[in-house]
C-alpha cells in the first residue's frame, strides 16, 4: 500500500498499547518508510489510560500528533469512549469487545469488534492482546508486511532479557493469529 496512514492505539497501562506502536514504527523503518510515534506522557501509570499516535508514510510526516486518525485501536472501553470521535470519516475502529460493551455511536466509520482478551487467553495469555490487535490491523490495512513486524520482533528478542526473549514464538504466533481473524472472517469486518 502506498500513501500514508495514521493510527491511534489506546488502552490501559500494561496492555501494551505503546509497545504495539513502537513495533509498528520499527517495522516501518525496516520498509524504508517515514514514521513517527508519539505517546501520551506525564502522569501515566499501570492501570491508567495510555495511548500513542503512529504515522506511517511515503513522505515526511508533518506532526506526530494525530488530530483525526484513519484507524483507532481501542483495547478497552475508556479508549473507545475517548477516541471514537477521533476517527476520520470512512476510517475504522478496532474494538476489544472483551472489555468494551459500549454502544457504537457513528455511522460514517466501520467497527471491527474482536474479543481480544478471550482469544488471547485461549491462545496463550491476555498479555498478548496488543499483538493480536496489531496482526488484525495489518491484515486489514496492508500498510506494512507482517513479515517486517516479525523481523523486528526477532531483532528485539536478541536485546531483551532471556525471560522476555522466550516469548518470541508466542509473539510470532499471535501476530499471525491476529491477521487470520480478518483474513478468515472470524469477526464481522
Amino acid at each position, binding site marked *: 500500500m502506498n500513501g500514508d496512514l495514521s493510527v491511534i492505539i489506546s488502552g490501559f497501562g500494561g496492555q501494551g498499547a505503546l509497545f504495539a506502536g513502537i513495533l509498528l514504527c520499527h517495522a516501518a523503518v525496516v520498509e524504508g518508510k517515514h514514521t*513517527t*510515534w508519539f505517546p501520551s506522557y506525564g502522569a501515566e501509570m499501570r492501570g491508567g489510560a495510555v495511548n500513542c499516535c503512529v504515522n506511517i508514510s511515503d513522505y515526511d510526516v508533518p*506532526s506526530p500528533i494525530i*488530530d483525526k486518525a484513519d484507524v483507532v485501536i481501542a483495547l478497552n472501553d475508556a479508549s473507545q469512549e475517548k477516541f471514537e470521535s477521533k476517527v476520520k470519516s470512512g476510517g475504522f475502529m478496532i474494538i476489544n469487545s472483551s472489555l468494551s460493551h459500549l454502544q457504537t455511536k457513528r455511522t460514517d466509520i466501520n467497527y471491527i469488534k474482536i474479543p481480544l482478551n478471550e482469544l488471547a487467553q485461549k491462545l496463550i495469555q491476555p498479555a498478548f492482546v496488543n499483538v493480536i490487535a496489531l496482526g488484525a490491523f495489518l491484515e486489514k490495512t496492508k500498510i506494512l508486511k507482517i513479515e517486517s513486524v516479525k523481523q523486528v520482533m526477532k531483532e528485539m528478542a536478541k536485546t531483551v532479557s532471556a525471560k522476555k526473549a522466550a516469548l518470541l514464538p508466542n509473539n510470532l504466533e499471535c501476530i499471525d493469529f491476529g491477521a487470520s481473524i480478518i483474513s478468515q472472517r472470524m469477526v464481522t469486518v
Partner: protein
Amino acid sequence: MAKVLVKGNEAIAQAAINAGCRCYFGYPITPQSEIGEYMGKHLPPMGRVFITAESELASVNMLIGAGTTGTKAMTSSSSCGIALMQEAFSAMCCAQVPGVIVSVMRGGPGLGNIAPAQGDYFQALKGGGNGDYKIIVLSPSTVQEAIDLTYRAFHLALKYRNPVMLLADGVLGQMMEPAEFGEYPYKDPDVTQWALDGADNREPRNIVSLHMPEGEMEMLTNKIFEKYEQIAKNETTYEDYLLSDAKLVLTAFGSVARVAKAAVKKARDNGMKVGLFRPVTLFPFPDKDLHETAVKTDMILDVELNKGQMLLDVRSAVFGACPVEFYGRPAGGLLTPDMIYKKITELYSKLENTEAGVK
C-alpha cells in the same frame, strides 16, 4: 550508518555523549526526564559524571563549575525549570563560560501543563537574566536535527565561550522517528589558554562575573558584543522551503515548522505560491535573510504555538517591507496542517483580490 528509530529526548542525550559531554547535571521534569534517565544509565559506566541535582538552580551552577574548567557539560530542563536558571545564564555570558542547556518547552505560564508549547521563545531569546547578554539558541524541528544541533551546540559553546541552548518542545522530546547519529563532526578549539586547570607552573586565572573597576564592565560588554557580531556573521542558519517565487511566506520554528511545511506543500499542490522561512538559529536570528525575503514577497504569516513571540523578531526583520500576519494558539492548543492551510487560503485569496483590484 543506518537509520534507527529513536525518541527525541534520548537522541539528544546520545548525541551529547557522542559530542564528548563529560558531565550532566539535571533535575527531572516532564517532558524531558528521559534525557536525565538516559544520561544516568550511560554516563557513569563510561567514567563520566552524572548528578541528579537538588534543584535546577544547583544543576546550572554545577554547569558553570564544569564550564570554567573547559569541560564539555550539559544540563536540561523544561519551562518553569529553565526559569530558575536565568541568573546563571547571565553570569555565564559575562564570565564567558561555555555550557549546553537543553530546554524542552511545555505549557506555561506558571507551572502550566505538560503539553507541547512554544511559549519560551522570549525566555530563551530575551532572557530573564540581568544585563546585556545573549545566549546562542538552536531550534530543531526533527529528531535528526535534534542530533545535529546537539553536536553543534557543544561545538559553539566552546568556540565562543558562551552558553548555548537547544530549544526543543514536548513534541520533539517525546516523539520517536528514524534518525542517524553519524559521528561528532567538529574539531573543537583548545581550551588550555583560559580554562581553570590547577595553575600548576603558571599564573593563577580568575573567571568571574563581577567587574568593579571604572570602565571595565563597559569594555568587557563591548568586547562580548563584538563576539556576538561574529556569531551572527558566522553561524546564522535558516531553511528555505520554496521561497523563490512565494507570494505568501510562512515563518515558523521548531516542531510547528514541520506542520507549517505540510500546509505549504498542500497550498503548492493547489496552485498557490507559498513558501516557508524557518530560522534554525534563533540567536543569531536570520534577520537580513528574512528582510530580503520580505522585500520579494507580498505577505508574511508567522505561525507559532504561543500568543506571538518570534513574531516580534519577524516584524523587526521585515521592518515594514511587507505586511506581517500572525496565527497561533497558546499552551495546550494544537496546530494541524489543515488549520494552517485554512489560514493560508484565507490570506492568499485576500492577496489575489487586492492584486485584481490594483489591475
